[in-house]
């Protein structure tokens, strides 16, 4: 009888730990990053910087943004190539600094394009009074990976936070949750 009680006590402890772990894990994942639900099935994904609208001075900050994601432990990586996954610059009016358009079939990404909005001023050095190219590109490449935006007070320092301001450069550096996102989608 004593053995049964002891065994049941230990089983209860194990079950309780399991439940608590599940709850903590669910909460953590929801807040840490958000996955759009589709992905690339082969990589590298080539970023096409051949469009005439893209200034030559932008290639280094954009390459730096690619490198930030490439440094994750995930096997996914970006490179530069004539893929048709174009980066362009156009005046699109107020509201958005940049926008990515992802096309897919089923749960597979098949094409993607990125527009930087020249309605706003841009800087390659984090200058005040302009959006920093590398800062915004790093965020947008998160969308290319299928990461969603994040909002809320606990997410303001993350690359995938949904807003950006002039002179901001903090999105250039990935936070651990951004890295967890790419590592989760592309293990």
């Amino acid at each position: 009888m004593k053995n049964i009680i002891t065994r049941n006590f230990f089983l209860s402890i194990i079950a309780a730990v399991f439940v608590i772990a599940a709850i903590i894990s669910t909460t953590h994942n929801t807040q840490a990053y958000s996955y759009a639900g589709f992905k690339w099935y082969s990589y590298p994904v080539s970023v096409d910087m051949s469009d005439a609208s893209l200034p030559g001075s932008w290639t280094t900050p954009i390459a730096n943004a690619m490198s930030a994601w490439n440094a994750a432990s995930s096997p996914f990586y970006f490179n530069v190539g004539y893929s048709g996954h174009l980066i362009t610059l156009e005046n699109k009016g107020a509201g958005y600094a940049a926008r990515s358009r992802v096309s897919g079939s089923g749960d597979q990404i098949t094409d993607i394009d990125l527009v930087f909005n020249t309605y706003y001023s841009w800087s390659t050095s984090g200058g005040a009074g302009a959006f920093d190219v590398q800062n915004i590109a790093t965020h947008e490449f998160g969308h290319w990976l299928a990461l969603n935006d994040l909002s809320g007070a606990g997410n303001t320092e993350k690359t995938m936070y949904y807003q950006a301001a002039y002179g901001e450069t903090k999105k250039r550096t990935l936070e651990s949750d951004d890295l967890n996102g790419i590592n989760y989608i592309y293990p």
Partner: protein
Amino acid sequence: MNKKITTLILALIVIISGSVVAFNFRPHAVSKKINTRISSILVKLSPEEITKQSDVVIVGTVKDLKTLKTKSNFWSKDDEDIVTNANVEVEKYLFNPKNLSGLEIIVQTIGGTIGNETMFAEDEPKLEKGQRVIVFLRQAKNGAYIVFGGPQGAYTINGNNVAVGEKEQNVFSDVFGKQMALDELEKQISTIVSSSEQQK
């Protein structure tokens, strides 16, 4: 008997918690029907910016929704967007520099489904029939009124409360600094509009 019940309860706990974990590690929010997905990075807007840079700010109620395909306002080439036109019955104009007088404004948001084709725009507000809203609108090149600043420019109204749900409330606080009631928000917008007119 007691032993059997205890074992059964333990088994149930393990199965339920296992299911929670399994659900958690499943890809999030997967929609295999989405063909095109738009994601952006938004410009952080202050109360002054979102008000003064809007073409019109209204309080109203969504009466009808219609999904259609139209030439894209944002993408070049010959791209088309699937958009949803919301007929919003105007209850009150809070900022109206164009002196609009219509009882209804059509608010166009990107996203919707036509046949087996779906476009989803992560940063576009999703207006619903019957929803009472405050919306900050800009007129797009095609003449349609679009929500300014994505989720920063549209909030659900419930009674005298503005912004419903965690995401809307987070965004509202980012723009206006705190949660506030509709009458307080209207007063703030009125103050911004007045100071803007005095500067002119």
